[in-house]
């Protein structure tokens, strides 16, 4: 067994392990309709005919919508090239030096067999004749020099290329992460967090993988193949041509392998993703699995998936089983031919023993990197496609751009105006046809209406998650599009029912509202919303690590934390979108009490299904299909006997 084999083994592992991580790539969603029509790639798996029926249970899902990665090929290549050029621009000099180093290194490596030939053919005969050792000494000295050059250039190349690679990778990570943080909410809504995560994890890993293993090997493979070819022809053009003729077979084999492994690669990823989904969902849903005696059916499904994964892996292994020994056979044949034909040449004195020995050594250098090229193929391919997806993200335009020359708004008072605001998520289907709303500073407004009436949309427009399709949203008379992000976020904060708790301590989580807040401020904020009771009952109170115990914080407790965070942020405008929905009755009551004091001197927009929350508002707006149909104080609306009065009475009766 040889070095090449070990690395090929490693490569098999990589191609199999690519997706062996809990984060699931969007590739899992190829749309099962495709599958039923029978992908070309899977025809050769030993049971492709049964695939469709075997997977019926998965159901049908919408076609994968990856607009970014599905654009036409040529544009993508150009886009990636531009990104790569941009990333590498600061390293022009380093790259120049790298080229010099790698060329020198390869020349030094090529020198060794040649010097062996010189030693055997010209160093030994004088000695045999009892003559001088000068030639041999000269050859040995040159060899030492070659080894020295090889050492220095190799270390230099590996280090410098490693550094450039890692720096580029770091810069790419930073750019993409910054870009994602910058991109608007509408983008994230459609892109989904799962895909964003895989851009920054598996795609980055693919590039890191190439940098670590493949890049150096690829450069050296190409250079030594070229260099060796030249040397072979120089040493003996007849034998050299014979050796190069075997390249034809190598090219055929490589082409076959590339085609097969490209199609296989995708099938492996997909099969492994399906095993992972089934496994993870069984384990996370184990309560339901056991409560409903789902185990036998699960086992049957998993058997099907695991066997599918096995079969596709067998196929991958067999691709390597053909390719690797195939190259080996070509190499061995070349060696055999060199021995035989070269032996005859030596016999005819048209070639020397030294040249024969050099040929044997060169053939080693020739065929070893040949295997490398195939190994790098997969990692090269996935790095390229990763780069394409990343460059797609980077060229995405921000739908809610920051103003280049913002109107300063250091101390907003909190007056909100929506002037003829129109908004639609899908063009032509307006959620808000034309809304006029004026909220004076300090007023608490409650929005009431059925799902889809446009309440949350209004909240998102005020916090500038979206910009209106037409019309204007103003804070203290300034268009939100003219306000810098910092000023806007200081003035306006939104709390939703999405109770995000970050890794870290309870105190860290509250301090998210105001980085650098003192412990007193944090505790005071917790007290305001009544979160202090449960926090103080925790083992480490405010220093309790939520990541370790996060699972044990109930939804209600998380919501209280989020509330405390908003209190600490102390914005002029507070938007509450279903922010009390997970609280049980006693906690909700405590929060209500807190809200009354908290909201007394600031502008607030409250959305809640529970009318108990709504009752503390100064003003209630009833919305329907994006229009305001009732507007007044709670008492006025009750007296008017309209929608709100109806809702109120059915709510009262539900309390019994």
């Amino acid at each position, binding site marked *: 067994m040889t070095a090449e084999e070990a690395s090929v083994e490693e490569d098999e592992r990589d191609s199999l392990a690519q997706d062996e991580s809990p984060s699931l790539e969007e590739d899992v969603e190829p749309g099962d309709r495709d599958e039923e029509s029978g992908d070309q790639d899977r025809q050769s798996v030993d049971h492709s005919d049964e695939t469709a029926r075997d997977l019926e249970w998965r159901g049908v899902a919408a076609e994968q919508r990856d607009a970014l990665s599905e654009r036409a090929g040529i544009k993508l290549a150009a886009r990636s090239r531009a990104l790569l050029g941009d990333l590498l621009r600061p390293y022009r000099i380093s790259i120049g030096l790298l080229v010099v180093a790698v060329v020198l290194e390869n020349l030094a490596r090529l020198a060794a067999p040649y010097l062996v030939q010189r030693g055997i053919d010209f160093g030994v005969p004088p000695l045999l004749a009892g003559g001088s050792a000068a030639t041999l000494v000269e050859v040995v000295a040159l060899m030492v020099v070659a080894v020295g050059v090889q050492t220095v250039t190799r270390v230099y190349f590996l280090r410098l290329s490693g550094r450039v690679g890692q720096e580029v990778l770091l810069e790419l990570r930073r750019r993409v992460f910054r870009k994602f943080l910058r991109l608007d909410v509408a983008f994230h809504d459609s892109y989904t967090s799962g895909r964003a995560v895989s851009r920054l994890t598996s795609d980055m890993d693919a590039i890191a993988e190439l940098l670590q293993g493949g890049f150096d090997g690829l450069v050296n493979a190409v250079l030594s193949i070229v260099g060796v070819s030249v040397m072979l022809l120089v040493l003996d053009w007849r034998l050299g041509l014979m050796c190069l003729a075997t390249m034809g077979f190598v090219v055929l084999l490589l082409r076959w392998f590339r085609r097969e492994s490209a199609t296989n690669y995708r099938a492996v990823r997909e099969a492994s993703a399906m095993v992972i989904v089934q496994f993870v969902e069984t384990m996370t849903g184990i309560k339901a699995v056991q409560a409903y005696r789902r185990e036998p059916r699960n086992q049957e499904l998993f058997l099907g998936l695991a066997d599918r994964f096995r079969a596709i892996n067998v196929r991958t292994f067999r691709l390597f089983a053909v390719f690797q020994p195939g190259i080996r056979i070509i190499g061995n044949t070349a060696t055999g031919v060199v021995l035989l034909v070269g032996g005859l040449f030596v016999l005819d004195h048209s070639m020397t023993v030294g040249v024969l020995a050099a040929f044997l050594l060169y053939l080693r250098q020739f065929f070893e990197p040949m295997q490398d090229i195939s190994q790098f193929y997969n990692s090269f391919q996935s790095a390229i496609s990763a780069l394409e997806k990343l460059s797609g993200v980077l060229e995405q335009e921000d739908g809610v751009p920051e103003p280049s020359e913002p109107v300063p708004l250091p101390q907003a008072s909190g007056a909100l105006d929506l002037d003829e605001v129109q908004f639609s998520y899908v063009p032509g289907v307006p959620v808000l046809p034309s809304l006029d709303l004026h909220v004076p500073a300090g007023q608490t407004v409650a929005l009431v209406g059925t799902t889809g009436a446009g309440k949350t949309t209004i909240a998102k427009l005020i916090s500038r998650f979206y910009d209106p399709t037409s019309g204007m949203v103003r804070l203290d008379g300034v268009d939100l599009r003219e306000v810098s992000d910092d000023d806007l976020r200081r003035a306006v904060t939104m709390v939703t029912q999405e109770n995000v708790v970050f890794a870290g301590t309870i105190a860290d989580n509250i301090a*998210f509202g105001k980085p650098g807040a003192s412990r007193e401020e944090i505790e005071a904020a917790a007290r305001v919303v009544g979160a202090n009771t449960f926090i103080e009952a925790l083992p480490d109170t405010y220093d309790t690590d939520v990541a370790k115990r996060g699972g044990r914080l109930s939804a209600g407790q998380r919501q209280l934390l989020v509330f405390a965070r908003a209190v600490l942020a102390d914005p002029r405008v507070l938007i509450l979108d279903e922010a009390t929905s997970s609280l049980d009755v006693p906690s909700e009551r405590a929060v209500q009490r807190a809200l009354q004091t908290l909201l007394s001197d600031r502008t607030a927009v409250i959305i809640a299904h529970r009318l108990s929350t709504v009752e503390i508002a100064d003003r209630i707006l009833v919305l329907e299909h994006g229009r305001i149909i009732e507007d007044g104080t709670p008492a006025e609306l009750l007296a008017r006997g309209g929608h709100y009065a109806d809702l109120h009475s059915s709510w009262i009766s539900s309390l019994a």
Partner: protein
Amino acid sequence: MRSGPMSARERVRVLYGDSLTRHPALRPPPTRRVPLTSLLRFTPYIRPYRGRFLVMFLAALGGTGISIVIPLVTRQLIDGPIAAGDRQGVFALGAVALALGLVEGGLAFLRRWVMAIATLGSETGVRLDMYAKLQRLPWGFHARWESGQLLSRIMNDLSTMRRFIGFGLLMIVMNLLQIVVVTSLLLRLYWPMGLVVGVAAVPVVLVCLVNERVYTRLSRGIQDQTGDVASSVEEAMQSVRVIKAFGRAGLVYDQFDRRARVLYATSMERVSNTSKFWTFLEVIPGLALVAVLTIGALAAAQHHLTLGTLVAFITMMLSLIWPVAALGFLLSMTQDAMTAADRVTEIFDAPESIADGPLHLEQPQGEVVFDNVSYRFPDSEEDVLHGLNLHVRAGETIGIVGGTGSGKTVLTSLVARLVDVTQGRITIDDVDIRDLKVANLRGIVATAFEDPTLFSMSVRENLTLGRPDATEEEVADALETAQAGFVHELPWGLDTRIGEQGMSLSGGQRQRLALARAILVKPRVLVLDDTLSALDIHTEALVEEALKRVLVGVTGLVVAHRASTVMLADRVALLQNGTITHIGTHSELLATVPEYRDLLSASFDAESELDELEREVAQ
């Protein structure tokens, strides 16, 4: 499929089709542990493929032998026919070299071809047994293990073991063999040069062994730090709206950047380590080549050595580099495989604490009695539930009301034996539920949890979770009763995939689907955990209506958070600090128990609260 020998696919099915209902094929843990114990326990998975493993071994042996022989043929060729001018001999020996080369390639092909079925078949066997084992393990086990940890065992650890068994182990044997044989051959060819090669190998072995340790440490560090960066990324991408709402992109970016820079620093350390190591691996043989050529030329000059031997010597020496250099890598591979085996056996050895009882209830009535029940989490020192008594008559619906942390969730898991009581007992129709067959019990009791778990499968598959054989009519009836007719409007109706990888449903829709799923089991006892989620009044009414219909004719235990849900119950039990303190109708409890009123009377009267506050302040 086809006649004759079993296909690989059939073999997997024959061997592991019944994984769920039998013990894993894994050997039981021996009393005395040796370093390889855990790995050796997996031999039963290899046994079905032993023929193939034997072929692999023999092919590898043959291949190694030939690679040793080829340089000797070269030597023979140069010293014999070429030196003697024997054209015939050149043809003969050249043909031999050619043939040996082809055979060697053929053997490599054979080994790899055979290996695919054998090692992947064994791996799949362990995977299936492990999945079955995990499905049998009780909820208490799963509560302690994150699914990510289990996933890395069933995917990464199993493939680590597969690589060791199919490749690493074979390579250790072959490499050692090659080192011993080739070194002794070199010594026999010309001992001073053999000695030089032997001496050159010593530093290579040492450096490889030491370096492997450093390299492994750095790689693990990089793995961990990549994980840290990934968790920053995950957290940020999942909460991007909150980050925006508070304008904290800078804060989050800084945290990410800190981690990315740590990763960068470690990666650079590895770059510098590998650059030195790879260079070393090329330089030592280079220097050895210089030494061999010098000594060889001098020896040839003094006729101690033929030219053929010199050429053979150089080729053989070069063939030793890899087996020597790989020792460190192979050792760490062995280490990894042993660790992986330990991690996997840890799961196989976990006790399956929830076991079948002897009895089977044919016609259950559904009377449920909690008799002095206590429950304590395995890692805790306090009872979550204690001295709990509750008698639910057949067909009756009991509402359970309690504040946060009162033990409601545990209570819902006890009846279907997802966890077992730690003291006391629960009976159905006077039979201790631990005396029943688990499948029988779980057919009698259906549980719908606070968070309805949906799987990434079709609606139909999700609905028939507990009844894979349900007919179309039964499914339609259940959907109708649970007010879940909306599924017919989905793009592909009941075939639409839902769950994380499919269509997302609203909270109210999920709840109604979970109800339909519970009804389909046709349980005698229904345990429901009603959620406290944001349903608008219209949806809430739909869910209430569904609940009302579902509870007709079955014994119900309903954990309720809202007054409207409590109204569905015949009686209400108030759970406080892990035990039931009051039981009665809703209006009785509302009238007589202040704590109950506190929990459920949502009519928040701001004015009166304010008055009260003001009074407090005034005092």
